[in-house]
């Protein structure tokens, strides 16, 4: 109910903002007067300094002038010079037959592939802003849009945040078209669907939704599309904006939508019946629905031998638990359960802690927070200095803190293990949620020991079980248990045994082999 009310409210907002755009450009048609058209465009753009207006005469009808408009830096200038301006300025006089000038331009003078006639001034402005060139001819109540998008961009490079030893080295780029092509090239399936949206009232960002028809659950597609359409924001600069606008709930530290920089990972997810959302201007592609497996599954698991992949998944799960619980366990053992520590180690620990003036919770909090600061700083530090500072900071400060008697040596080991463990997580945005959760666990451990840790784990577990991502339970296929899907969770079985797609995502067509 509440959701529906929000929807209608959003709809009203959307209508209002569209009206604002209407007020500026209106439903104005292209005028027959060339000068008026040019004046209008430059007025809409506020005499933009990057607007290039080139007036010229077509020799076929020297009495009528024409004008080509484009934004500097957004369009492919050599293309416009060679295949638009040159033929129109030079070849016009060679034409002998007597057709209308406007038809003639389309028949033989425009040497580009993507060309459209337009009468609406609004769509002309939109095309101009997205990098196309527009053409007006005196005396015509139509304009032409010439597809000439072309700007400086980064090439396809290694995905920075998800590097693998074996597997494709290609990563997504900031260009939406390049990204869709990267997916299309790996998935030559006619059923691959791509739907475009323009989101962001002011940024007009291109957003593409990709899925495989027949494999995906149609209800999820509809849900994703409905949620995308209801977005009402002036700017979409990164897929993170979309993620937060369409996720199921905001009240969780866990990412409800996965993201990846790797085209092969995106395709693998498409084949499982998930949906990819590509946003122009960012190499991070969103994948919905997301489940807990993003905490321990890496694309490389499917490229290496299955036994090793299974082992690595177990290892990553241990790392997940270590990153979450190790400092809390340290505090619990020191303050409540020293009898559980083997006696020789207990003596050594007591000796190590003898000079430490603080209770273990203060010790742990101080160390954890300083390591978090070091991590944050090493991300900001330029290039090669970053990792150096990290190592120097951790080693030197740790060592000095121990010899100054501020922390115990074991605490340094605990903090080091915790930090390294959280890097073992294959997905960065999943890993940072664990970084955050560590602190409440430490505080609870200081108050209630192991018992408190267990109680917090219960709450965390019920929270995870309650979470849904686009209708799919977050902990599936473990809770609710789906035996047929377990073969690709904590373990990975060889490919010949995975003949069915995971039923968790309710695929329309569940067989991987022998498709029609």
């Amino acid at each position, binding site marked *: 109910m509440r959701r529906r009310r929000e929807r209608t409210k959003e709809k009203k907002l959307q209508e209002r903002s569209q009206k604002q755009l209407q007020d500026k450009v209106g439903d104005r048609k292209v005028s027959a007067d060339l000068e008026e058209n040019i004046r209008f465009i430059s007025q809409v753009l506020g005499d933009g300094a990057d607007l290039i207006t080139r007036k010229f005469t077509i020799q076929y009808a020297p009495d009528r002038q024409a004008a080509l408009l484009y934004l500097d830096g957004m369009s492919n200038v050599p293309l416009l010079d060679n295949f638009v301006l040159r033929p129109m300025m030079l070849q016009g006089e060679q034409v002998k037959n007597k057709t209308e000038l406007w038809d003639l331009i389309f028949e033989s003078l425009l040497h580009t592939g993507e060309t459209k006639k337009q009468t609406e001034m609004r769509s002309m402005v939109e095309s101009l802003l997205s990098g196309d060139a527009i053409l007006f001819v005196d005396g015509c109540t139509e304009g032409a849009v010439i597809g000439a998008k072309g700007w400086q961009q980064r090439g396809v490079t290694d995905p920075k945040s998800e590097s693998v030893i074996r597997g494709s080295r290609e990563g997504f780029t900031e260009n939406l078209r390049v990204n869709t092509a990267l997916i299309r090239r790996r998935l030559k399936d006619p059923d691959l669907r791509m739907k475009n949206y323009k989101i962001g009232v002011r940024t007009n960002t291109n957003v593409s939704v990709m899925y495989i028809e027949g494999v995906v*659950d149609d*209800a*999820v597609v*509809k*849900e994703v599309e*409905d949620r995308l359409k209801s977005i009402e924001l002036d700017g979409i600069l990164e897929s993170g904006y979309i993620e937060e606008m369409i996720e199921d709930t905001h009240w969780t530290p866990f990412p409800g939508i996965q993201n990846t920089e790797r085209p092969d990972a995106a395709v693998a997810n498409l084949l499982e019946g998930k949906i990819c959302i590509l946003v122009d201007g960012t190499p991070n592609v969103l994948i919905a629905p997301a489940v807990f497996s993003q905490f321990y599954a890496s694309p490389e698991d499917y490229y290496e031998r299955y036994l090793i992949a299974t082992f690595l998944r177990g290892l990553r799960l241990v790392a997940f638990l270590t990153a979450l619980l190790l400092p809390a366990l340290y505090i619990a053992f020191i303050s*409540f*359960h020293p*009898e*559980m*520590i*083997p*006696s020789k180690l*207990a003596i050594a620990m007591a000796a190590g802690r003898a000079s430490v003036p603080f209770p273990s919770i203060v010790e742990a909090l101080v160390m954890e927070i300083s390591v978090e600061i070091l991590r944050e700083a090493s991300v900001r530090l330029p290039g090669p200095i970053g990792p150096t500072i990290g190592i120097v900071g951790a080693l030197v400060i740790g060592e000095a803190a121990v010899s100054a008697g501020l922390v115990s040596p074991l605490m340094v080991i605990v903090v080091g293990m915790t930090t390294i463990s959280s890097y073992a997580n294959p997905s960065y945005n999943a890993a940072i949620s664990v970084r955050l959760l560590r602190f409440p666990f430490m505080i609870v451990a200081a108050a*209630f*020991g*192991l*018992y*408190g*840790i*267990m*109680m917090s784990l*219960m*709450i965390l*577990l*019920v929270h995870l*079980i*309650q979470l*849904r991502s*686009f*209708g799919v*339970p977050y*902990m599936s296929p*473990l*809770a*609710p*248990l789906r035996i047929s899907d377990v073969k690709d969770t904590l373990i990975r079985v060889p490919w010949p045994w995975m003949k069915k797609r995971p039923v968790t995502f*309710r695929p329309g067509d569940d067989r991987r082999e022998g498709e029609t």
Partner: protein
Amino acid sequence: MDPSSKQGKEQPISIYQGHALIVTTVVGVGVLYMQRGIAQTAGADGIWTILLGGLLAMLELYILTKLLQRFPKQHSTVWMPRLLGSEKRSGVGKILALPFFFAIALFWISASALACRTFGEVLVTAIFPLTPMSVILLTLLVTAVFVASTPVEVIARFNEFLLPVLYLPVILIFAVWAKEGEWLNMLPLFQLSWKEAGLGILVSFFAFSGSSIVFAFMGYYQQPEKAVKAHMSAIAVIILIYWIVTAASVAVFGPDELKRLMWPTLDLVKSAEFPGMILERLESGLIAIWVVAVFTTLVNLLAALIDIIVRLFRIQDRSRKWIGLALIPVLYFLAIWPKDIQDLFFWNWIVGVYSPLVSITVGLILLAIALLRRKKGGDPHVPTPPTS
């Protein structure tokens, strides 16, 4: 449109979840001390009276399952008034059903409060000698209510996920048995008179309390026709767990020492010593893991209680947490009621007797009425399960 509504038409609890619900509810704080009572009545023969007691528990759950299978996919609050009342005046059936619900709910609320207190006593003895009981009770109750007031499907998944955790300590106890057990302690067998044996079987039977939660949850089963198998296998698993714990305690301590131990399972784990063990003593660890067993019992009983209240008084699903919050003072009062640990064990004993008594009586009465009035389910008005 929410894609979960496609699933929402289905009932939320799968057959394996039903199995898990029974196991996690019955296995609770009792495992920490139930072998003492068995040793007191049956001595070394406890290792077979527990098996026969388990068969009685199977019979109890079989009666309940058969009764509830007559009304598939219907909540108890829907079919019971219909069974008891007349077609024309639905109010009569509702009033007649109230005593039954009250009898069952009384067990749920007292059992959860006592489980809370008992575990609190364990914590105070073993880990927190200085922490006041009220703090422990409140943390346990608040957390349990927080979890129990989630939708039924979440409760089911929660149990399903935690079920394997319950097996961990059993493996540990099995290892202790293999290492420290003296076979001679388990002999001689069959020294009981018929009367003593009967008493021993009954005492063992009383350790299996909690299966009456099916009154709340079986209406949500996806395939109620398969429930017998799931429930019987659940009791079988519990019998196995109880048997291992009892036999290991008898083998390690002998029946005479066992009679005097307050928490025999904890002492059992205390004596565990294996080469290459990372942790020196395991009882805090066992208690930490046993939090799961106690907690699931608590959560399931409370969830059943909240569910029945919500359904009976037609309260919105959203206000489950308010009902849970309202229950906290009552539960706290009941939990703090026994004045010392002796008193607590006395009340535990009373509730242990009350549980099978009430579920067998209620089950048989309703089954008899259903057979006499030839009432059966198969009504198309399936209760809509709560969605998250």
